[in-house]
């Protein structure tokens, strides 16, 4: 791999990991507070999987540049994170959480399916492994979108409000990183523009079938992963508070 491609791949792996890590954080905020015990279990399961995926992507990065995954997760500052803003938004209500997870799962499914054909075997293998779990997530969140969309007036209203709050943010999932075209050129990662069409068609169909109103005005669409929401600082202040509490500690 050329040094340029390697740098681009390191950046991409970091962005993939950050998405999963931050989403996992938001999901895990529900633990013990879900609307039904069974859903506490299911969402904790999803949070656990997403955390596992974050570790996977960080270990691929570690293989390239030797960076310790825990240092990356717990000692980077907000401006060094490369997660999409959608995943930083506060957990909101159950409709907000389920919809975000659905929009992300659907994006991830397309991305992972395409990435199984990566010319870089570690990416292809990781994608295949993660894909198996993500199919379950999608099944689960897709069903929730339908239930809430077609449930009561109240649940439909909340889901629609969540959709209006998330739609513009979700588009950021398809904005490539600077330099990502090199990786696409070498067949290491799929091209986001193409995936977006499939994603858009799929989610539009499912959301409409669930009784939601689309299309929506585009709203605010973040365009760079170098910029974040006001929520990331506080999220990291909490997430990193123990790890940073003892400057001498090397092992936790």
């Amino acid at each position, binding site marked *: 791999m050329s040094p340029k491609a390697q740098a681009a791949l390191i950046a991409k792996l970091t962005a993939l990991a950050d998405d999963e890590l931050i989403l996992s*954080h938001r999901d*895990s*905020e529900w*633990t*013990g*507070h*879900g*609307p*039904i*015990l*069974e*859903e*506490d*279990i299911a969402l*904790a*399961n999803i*949070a*656990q999987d997403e*955390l*596992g995926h*974050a*570790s996977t992507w*960080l270990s691929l990065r570690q293989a390239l540049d030797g960076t310790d*995954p*825990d240092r990356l*997760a*717990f000692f980077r500052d907000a401006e060094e994170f490369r997660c999409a803003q959608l995943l930083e938004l506060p957990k909101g*209500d*159950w409709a907000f959480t389920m919809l975000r997870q659905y929009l992300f799962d659907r994006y991830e499914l397309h991305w992972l399916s395409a990435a199984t054909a990566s010319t870089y075997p570690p990416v292809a293998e990781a994608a295949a492994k993660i894909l198996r779990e993500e199919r379950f997530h999608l099944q689960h969140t897709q069903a929730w979108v*339908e*239930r*809430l969309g*077609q*449930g*009561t007036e*109240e*649940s439909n209203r*909340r889901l629609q409000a969540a959709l209006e709050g998330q739609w513009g943010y979700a588009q950021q999932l398809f904005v490539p990183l600077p330099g990502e075209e090199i990786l696409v050129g070498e067949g290491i990662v799929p091209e986001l523009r193409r995936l977006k069409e499939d994603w858009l068609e799929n989610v539009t169909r499912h959301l409409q079938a669930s009784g939601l109103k689309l299309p929506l005005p585009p709203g605010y669409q973040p365009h760079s992963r170098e910029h974040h929401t006001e929520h990331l600082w506080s999220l990291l202040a*909490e*997430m990193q*508070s*123990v*790890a940073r*509490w*003892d400057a*001498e*500690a090397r*092992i*936790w």
Partner: protein
Amino acid sequence: ALRLAEFEARIARGEKIEPGDWMPEEYRRQLVRMISQHAHSEVVGMLPEGAWITRAPSLKRKMILIAKVQDEAGHGQYLYHAAETLGISREEMLEALLSGRAKYSSIFNYPTLTWADIGTIGWLVDGAAIKNQTMLAQCSYGPYSRAMVRICAEETFHHKQGKEMVIAYAKGTPKQRQMAQDAINRWWWPALMMLGPHDADSPNSEVLIRWGVKTKSNDTVRQEFINEHAPEILATGLSLPDPELHQDPQGNWRHGPINWEEFWSVVGGNGPMNKERLEARRRAHTEGAWVREALEAYAAKKSPIPMAV
């Protein structure tokens, strides 16, 4: 009286009582009380630990903690099912919890103040729970006994992870060691108390032992717990907050007097976290009401195809 004699004979032979079988009303009542209390403890117990998932200091510890709290939810689920075999519904049990009528383990009314509390809960609280559950795995009521076997296996894993964490911090930096010591100091006595009042003050014990629900007394289980944990904790170089603690000539570790006033105050609703724990559960229940209504409305529309939730 004949049926009672037969029932007691079955228990004496070591047979399990199963859901369809005849049982004395008091046996059913005691089991519903114990199993639902146990289920509630798992569910309420998610709160003090779950609050630290977002603050776990490494990816590995975070993963272990989510998995652990998820297991607790799962245990709650098994146990509610086990109680349901005795003819009470989950809704009735939840209502009893949220209204404050039902109890849960007093230990969860103490706060988790630092990250070391997570390891300490795993080691001491799960350690105490395992002693109790191992005993209950012998219980004469089949569904409870089987739930205990399954739960014990998972708790043993949590116990091991907690112990490993505390030992690592006991050998760690000065701040880590201090945090671990502070956690041990705060959790030691509540862990002893969670095994229940002394035998002399335990109103239900006698009948429960006769019917094979409990097979050991509170003090016996507590002694087992101390005998295992006291020397292990001392071996890490940490101390225990009991100046009278010592090993007697028989090899038993004897503890100083337990502050039962504190225990009864916590059981009576005046522990540091009673109000907050119950409020957190109530809030989750209230805020989840619209979700449950949506599920019902959806299921009604889609019936007769039953929904898998």
